[in-house]
């Protein structure tokens, strides 16, 4: 095992043992699980030269020895899928997919796999920092005498996602494959921590649905920044994938110019839903409700209702209640998911639904909504218009947002958060 910091600046000797320069950087080829080292950058008296790894006979903490004494400067160049370890990764920010956060590279760990040197891990722990400061040895001795140990932390290269802004040597398109597997809230947290350029890079590689889920989880300020940085077409596509209440809130926060650019590009159906929601005061039931809910006629059988649910694949927040409406759209009853599952398959909804369900008017105050949700222990409360027609539901998370706002506390220091003085 070898640390990058141990080899940078070490002498490079040719086949005869003559010193020709110092190790300036190592080149790895991305693509495999562990990127193999493919080249060596040597700093000679006057310039940086690139050498293919096949020219290197031995390589360790004492330096590099070349297999040949004839150096052909012209025959090696950095290819598009290759990274310079020192220039592009050392000291840069990366996404730790395992810990789901943005961290800084203190050192890089190289190791031989089947006789070839590969990049295997990233050192992000205090030990790496001390090594770079040149005091790892003394501090370790001190710690040992105190009966403690210096904390170490490594991330397997497989769990690392590099970021665009740090890749200075070439315009590498980072695929961000690992990020797509993260929970939207974690992804939102990571995007939140990044510089705008990296945000754009990551969002460009995500599909609309994942991007929408992640954006829903962000702080309102970040949502607006991210949306206004996107191309209007892409922003419209993502808004269509968001739940209408979140989309409406976000659109309400956009600048007038951004709103005028994005809204016309949305599909008509989604745009109408959003427009309708935008018509209600922000702090009313109408303002916080979503128009995504499940409404069925009272004549359906339990089995048919379950089939309908399968067909609709509703979101987690909306699946717990099935609302029963008459021909005019008036709310006449409600079923919980439990009621539905325990009912005999051929039972008719009218016979086991709960009649006269708790409902709120569209203009009900949001605090009233929160009270009702808490009082009746509901996961969602239906919202009806003046004629008693079901127009939407407020899910428990949105209802309680008034009493328990999302991470608002981070907003003050956010102004200063990115390395900010």
């Amino acid at each position, binding site marked *: 095992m070898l640390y990058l910091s141990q080899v940078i600046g070490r002498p490079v000797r040719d086949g005869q043992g003559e010193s020709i320069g110092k190790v300036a950087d190592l080149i790895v080829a991305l693509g495999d699980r562990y990127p193999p080292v493919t080249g060596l950058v040597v700093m000679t008296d006057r310039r940086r030269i690139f050498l293919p790894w096949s020219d290197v006979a031995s390589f360790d903490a004492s330096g590099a020895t070349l297999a040949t004494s004839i150096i052909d400067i012209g025959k090696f160049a950095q290819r598009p899928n290759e990274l310079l370890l020192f220039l592009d990764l050392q000291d840069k920010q990366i996404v730790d997919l395992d810990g789901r956060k943005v961290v800084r590279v203190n050192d890089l760990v190289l190791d031989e796999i089947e006789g070839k040197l590969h990049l295997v891990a990233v050192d992000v722990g205090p030990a790496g920092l001390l090594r770079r400061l040149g005091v790892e040895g003394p501090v370790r001795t001190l710690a040992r005498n105190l009966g403690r140990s210096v904390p170490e932390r490594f991330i397997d290269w497989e769990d690392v996602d590099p970021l665009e802004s740090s890749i200075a040597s070439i315009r590498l398109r980072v695929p961000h494959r690992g990020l797509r597997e993260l929970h939207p809230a974690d992804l939102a947290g990571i995007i939140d921590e990044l*510089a705008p*350029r990296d945000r754009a890079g990551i969002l460009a590689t995500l599909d609309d649905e994942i991007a929408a889920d992640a954006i829903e989880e962000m702080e309102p300020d970040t949502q607006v920044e991210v949306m206004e940085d996107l191309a209007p077409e892409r922003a419209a596509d993502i808004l269509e994938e968001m739940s209408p209440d979140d989309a409406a809130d976000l659109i309400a926060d956009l600048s007038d110019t951004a709103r005028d650019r994005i809204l016309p590009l949305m599909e008509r159906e989604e745009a109408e839903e959003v427009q309708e929601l935008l018509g209600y005061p922000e702090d009313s039931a109408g303002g916080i409700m979503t128009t995504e809910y499940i409404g069925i006629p009272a004549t359906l059988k339990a089995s048919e209702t379950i089939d309908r649910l399968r067909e609709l694949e509703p979101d987690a927040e909306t699946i717990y209640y099935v609302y029963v409406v008459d021909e005019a759209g008036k709310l006449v009853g409600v079923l919980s998911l439990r009621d539905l599952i325990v009912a005999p398959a051929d039972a008719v909804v009218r016979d086991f639904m709960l009649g006269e369900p708790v409902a709120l008017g569209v203009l009900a105050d949001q605090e009233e909504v929160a009270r009702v949700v808490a009082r009746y222990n509901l996961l969602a409360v239906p919202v009806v218009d003046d004629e008693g027609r079901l127009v939407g539901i407020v899910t428990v998370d949105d209802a309680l947002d008034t009493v328990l706002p999302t991470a*608002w506390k981070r907003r003050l*220091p956010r102004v*200063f*958060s990115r390395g900010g*003085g």
Partner: protein
Amino acid sequence: MRLPAAPEGVRRRVRAAGSELGPLARFRERIAAGDLLRLRPRFRGRGLLAFLAVMGPGLIAGIAGNEAGGLTTYSVLGAETGFRLLWLFPLTTVVLMIVQEMAARLGVVTGQGLSDLIRDWFGVRWTAFAMLVLFVANLGQTIAEFAGIAAALEIFGLPRLLTVPLTAVALWALVLFASYRTVERVFLSVILVFVTYIVSAFVSGPDWGEVGRALVTPSFELAPATLLLMVALVGTTITPYMQFYLQSAVAEKGIDEEELRLEQADAVGGAIWTNVVALFVVVATAQTLHAAGVRITDAADAAQALGPVAGELSTALFAIGLFGASVLAAMILPISTSFVICEAFGWESGVGKPFREAPAFFGIYTVTLFAGAVIVLLPFLPPLIDVLLFTQNLQGLLLPIVLVFMFRLVNNERLLGRHVNGPIRNALTLAAIVLVVALDAILLGVGALEAIGLRLG
């Protein structure tokens, strides 16, 4: 009957922990995480952020730069030297313009903060050095803010042994639970006081011709007291901390490269605004205090400069302004110091996080804040005015280090591409650095000679 549109495919809510949690369980998590205050919906799109968004980071940096240290330095400068050192203002204005423009350009083009870039391009050792410098500078600045708080409240007869610890504890908690409203009010009160200075400068009826001549007539003396004031003026006008703030604020706003010119104008405008306000503070104090031969020994003396406008209210107005400016800066300094250092070393940060997840972040924050407060309470401390001036000298002495890092970065072609410094900009920047270094060197040289018993001039 209304049915929702079926989403295409199954939404991916897999793998990560918490995905199987129902909404109620998620709320229990939020409660555990401490999100308990009820503020969000009412502040959306309004308040300080909206206000700041309109003003631009350069202008904010300019306004926030005039805090306790600035107010004191300008007041003492005006009282002690009258119009004699006014010629420094055109120079500090140009230097601040150059420096703020660099910070703004770095922020726009790279989208990263200054400590990020230092870590990215200079490695761990230089980063450790830069962060140590910044920590010392910001600790000095925090001391200045607590000295300002103590001085302001002593005007009302409140002893600092009571006020400083109380404010420190209140600030410590406030930053972790603050509402924008509070910050906004403090911010506006500060602007109000500076506007009073502008009015006061006019009402006191100086000979504007004389002011104009003083602005372009250099006079130089090697008296240590004057040199100290000169370095303090540079240090308080161009604080290291402000450059970190400005670049981060610009980066945070995500300003496009196409809007670079606008942002440069904002940075340059902010530099001019700071110095114009400072100039009026000096003119107002010179006209009232210097003319009357008053030496400033405490904050109540400095308050007399507002006399022409506020009359008997001037002491109270000055105290409120000084308190507001100090509290505002004391709210921001320790927390941003902590953010900057954690960012550079990749340590977990964020006030919303539990302590055990971000020990370094809360540790640096707490240490900076309370060390600043404790130092002001030390029994053998010189008068607060001297402490304030000393901290501003410290800024002036540490400034060149930050400027050299910035200079290296704006010359990095891989980083800035076509926005890299050209020869003319480089000449200007170098001249600015040389000017600051020369002033620092003269101060240190004269100080050293003085220490071994030699006296110049």
